[in-house]
């Protein structure tokens, strides 16, 4: 019997299935932590603080006067509910708020001269220097000045995105490590169990088959207006949920024994490390891998098994 359609292939299916379920759990935990720590909003707050702090304004000499005025402005304060910092701020809103604060009591239609006058009137500070540099490049054109301020904000937000991404990656590794240790998800131990217990292996492969029929764990997106692709709300589909049956099967492969020394060996830390690495690759990757391995197994079925399968499948529309 060849490699494909053998115990080894079923062990691989089992491993991929376990990694997939653990990755789904890790993603859910990461989202929970992100919501709990208000990670997105807090990262944006940090970015705005870096951009606007250290700048007094006329009549308020405190170094955080500009950022306070920014948050007190109705365009921004209307976005803050229950003291939760907004998770998104459009460049247009940023620029409108900032120019409104700078031009102060100015009446009528805003002109470039009003903005320049307002910036010149600011007490010395980092923001004043940055704004003057931007205005000098704007050919005394209000639209160009607005675009330059929006560009300045966008550049800062790129840094914010970088921080957010790095923090999320760090949290993924941390949560993968916590999940692995709490559940004692040791790749080597799981492999051993799958190898030595044909009944368990068969049950895992059956569940893996069912999982492969489910939708890929992916994003679903909604917009406030389908004709205006801005401010998307991204949610995760049902492929991101672990069923009770899957949990049950998983429970037979991972977990702590009452006498932990029975499962402990010098290879255990290596097994944990392999699991942490695998989880950090993410659920969509393991779902695709599961489908690929299942296809290999399907291609290697015995003639009897193959006879039971329709020769050509219709276009797959999965509910």
């Amino acid at each position: 019997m060849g490699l494909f359609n053998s115990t080894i292939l079923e062990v691989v299916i089992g491993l991929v299935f376990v990694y997939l379920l653990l990755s789904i759990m890790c993603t859910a935990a990461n989202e929970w932590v992100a919501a709990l720590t208000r990670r997105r909003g807090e990262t944006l707050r940090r970015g705005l603080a870096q951009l606007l702090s250290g700048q007094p304004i006329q009549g308020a000499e405190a170094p955080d006067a500009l950022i306070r005025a920014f948050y007190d402005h109705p365009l921004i304060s209307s976005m803050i509910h229950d003291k939760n910092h907004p998770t998104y701020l459009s460049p247009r809103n940023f620029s409108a708020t900032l120019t409104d604060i700078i031009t102060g009591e100015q009446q009528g239609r805003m002109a470039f001269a009003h903005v320049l006058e307002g910036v010149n009137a600011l007490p010395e500070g980092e923001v004043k220097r940055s704004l003057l540099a931007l205005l000098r490049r704007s050919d005394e054109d209000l639209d160009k000045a607005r675009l330059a301020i929006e560009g300045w904000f966008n550049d800062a937000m790129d840094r914010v995105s970088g921080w957010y991404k790095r923090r999320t990656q760090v949290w993924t590794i941390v949560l993968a490590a916590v999940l692995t240790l709490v559940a004692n998800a040791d790749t080597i131990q799981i492999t051993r169990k799958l190898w030595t217990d044909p009944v368990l292996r068969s049950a895992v492969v059956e569940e893996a088959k069912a999982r492969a029929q489910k939708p890929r764990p992916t994003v679903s997106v909604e917009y406030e207006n389908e004709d205006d692709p801005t401010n998307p709300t991204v949610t995760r589909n049902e492929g991101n949920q672990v069923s009770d049956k899957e949990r049950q099967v998983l429970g037979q492969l991972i977990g702590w024994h009452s006498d932990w020394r029975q499962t402990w060996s010098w290879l255990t830390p290596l097994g944990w490390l392999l699991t942490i690495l695998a989880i950090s690759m993410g659920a969509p990757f393991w779902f695709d891998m599961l489908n690929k391995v299942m296809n290999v197994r399907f291609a290697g079925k015995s003639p009897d098994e193959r006879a039971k399968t329709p020769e050509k499948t219709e276009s797959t529309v999965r509910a």
Partner: protein
Amino acid sequence: MNSTKRLQVFLLITALLVSPNICRADITVALSKGFVNKVKDKATITTKFNIDKHHNSPNPIGGGSDDGDIHIAGRDNVVKLPMVAEIINGAKETSAMQFLLDSTAGDEVPLVGVWRLWFEHPGSEDQVQGGKVGVPKNTNPDHIFEFHPVVRFGDFDVLNSFGPIENEEAEFRGYSAEKAFGTYEKRPGTITKSKTAIMITSNKAGFNYAEFQMRLAGKPKDVGDGYMVFANVYNADAKKNDDPVVEEARRMVFVKGSKPADAVKDLKKGDKLHVLGIPRVNLNMVFAIADGLKADEEYSESLPYEMIIVAILKD
């Protein structure tokens, strides 16, 4: 477990863990339904394009990726996805090239370009229209959507770039119809929808340019900014009685004002052209498929595609 089996298992686990580098992971792009409906039967998109990074000279002309293109990475205000604009035959568009060299990072220029959704450089993260688009770090960042070829850049009409990609020393040729269309036909595609968005999932694609003979299956249809026509695809040197390389006719897209469009607009069923084309996702079919799906249903088969015709080639 004997030692040979143990080694096999160890190697398989290792292979699984290093596989992200050798496997093509699926990536999802989410587009608003209104956007898909708006562009599905259009050749081009008109937008304002923020220039972030660009080539200082066009790609050389030769084989593979030496396709003579100028790459400009940036952000735009219509598509709102990571974006690259590509002017083909860059060496011939000297005015546009000079304009590009004179620009500074962050400059916003008006741009008309053939929209092209294709998983050529998908990267490793899902892309959501209207989500945060960072400043690209090089001229070819991870992107699924691009303007390729560009039709108008700033004040410069670059329609003359729609022609054979050649210089005095070399001519760029696409992959043979059999090879290229063989892979286009087998591209995996998953389509899902929400109330306001359509999600398309696929993995990294290859075989960018194809050289083939197209035989019209009907009359070209004027779509405002271009012509679209269904045609059967044959190898470039196909004889009259040869079989097509693809069973069904595929939609071909021509940009109005370009030489290929001038050549096709008055043709009729059965007429043929020897062309160079690049594939893009057929959003007309994607929209129709998504429209037919129930909530939580998923279409999973081959990715619908059509061809953008960039040049008429000599027989």
